[in-house]
């Protein structure tokens, strides 16, 4: 496997092989927690942190771990990290911890993490692996936040409701009533089916953009190549 550059890694994580939109990994928390922007951001950042840490540690030990016990060691690393982060969130972001509940410990089972550990971090130098964890984590967070924003906006007519859970009491004022205080709400968007519809829309949008880009690029290169071929 060639060692990719940082720019490539970033583009990969955020777009080309985005965990939420392309690899379709970790959909359970993605669908369950994306009911508001703040919930989504909280779980996204926690996942990104775990992904960064696990890629880093696994790349560090990659030459010392025998193949036979590779996976159990990875699982141990990930589980320890997640438990540590859960404790820290419980201590310093208690309200958010209460809202996210079971989905924090469940980060352990998020396939993106073991997937990146096995497919990437265990074969790459430390810095590259750590950066990949960050890029993938940010890609996952971005999808979560966009989906959370969509659902919060349509479902409740607000954005950033509950920001004080993450950013302290002053952030309570960040809440924006985009659709007015007397917006009746749209229950479907808040319920799990709304998450599926929202993700479906995002997937379609990404594919549409990719198709447009793909359609634009070949015609350009064809134009350049033509004289050569002729």
């Amino acid at each position, binding site marked *: 496997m060639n060692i990719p550059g940082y720019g490539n890694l970033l583009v990969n994580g955020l777009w080309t092989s985005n965990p939420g939109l392309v690899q379709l990994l970790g959909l359970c928390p993605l669908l369950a927690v994306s009911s508001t922007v703040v919930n989504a951001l909280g779980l996204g950042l926690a996942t990104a942190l775990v992904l960064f840490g696990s890629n880093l540690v696994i790349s560090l*030990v990659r030459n*010392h*771990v*025998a193949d*036979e*016990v590779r996976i*159990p*060691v990875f699982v*141990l*690393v990930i*589980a*320890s*990290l997640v*438990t*540590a982060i859960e*404790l*820290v969130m*419980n*201590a*310093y972001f*208690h309200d958010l911890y*209460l809202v996210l509940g079971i989905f924090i410990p469940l980060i352990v089972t998020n396939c993106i993490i073991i997937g990146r550990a096995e497919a990437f971090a265990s074969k790459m130098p430390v810095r590259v692996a750590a950066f990949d964890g960050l890029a993938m984590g940010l890609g996952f967070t971005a999808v979560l936040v966009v989906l959370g924003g969509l659902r919060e906006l349509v479902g409740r007519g607000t954005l950033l409701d509950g920001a004080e859970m993450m950013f302290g009491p002053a952030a309570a004022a960040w809440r924006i009533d985009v659709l007015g205080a007397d917006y009746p*709400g749209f*229950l479907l968007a*808040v*319920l799990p089916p709304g998450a599926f519809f929202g993700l479906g829309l995002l997937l379609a949008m990404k594919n549409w953009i990719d198709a447009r880009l793909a359609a634009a690029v070949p015609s350009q290169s064809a134009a350049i190549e033509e004289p050569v071929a002729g």
Partner: protein
Amino acid sequence: MSAREAMRKSLLGATLLAVAAAVGVAIVAYTFEHTAPQIRENEREVLLATLNEVLPANEYDNALVDDAITVTDPEMLGTTQPVTVYRAFRGGEPVAALFTSVAPDGYSGEIRLLVGVRADGRLSGVRVLAHKETPGLGDPIEIRRSDWITSFDGRALGDPPLERWKVRRDGGVFDQFTGATITPRAVVKAVRNTLIYFERHREELFAQ
């Protein structure tokens, strides 16, 4: 591969795994040590804030969170598990008992309540601690969704009379919500049963 070599390999693997486990435990233990006091403090604060919603902090002078007893009465308190009762005193005189009762017959499982009963048998307030009712239909029992739950404030066993301690559809005085009768019915019944329990056990509850 010779038997010796295979043995060596498995021993190596086992050692690696043991080392990884030890390091993992060390990380978790270290984090736990450093976060445990803060977590305990958070949990106390959350509990106290909830208790104070049902009984304002200026009405009692004891350490409410610490003055907890447990009682068991599956029929009246809705669960076979021991129910925690927080006891509020002022100058040694009983002020209120705060029950963590359960409404066992919600639309989707148990509804956990906090029912504050003053020493004179009137409700100081009721709050929902946890529930799994349908969002948008059953969740107006939460104070952040509607003020329905405050309709219990100041009520007592004789007010309304016992046979009217029901939702309107059943001939009682408490509103139900559009599209959801089962949820409020379960809550009303649980609150009424808690009051009955309090009436029967008042003396023991406040015994020091």
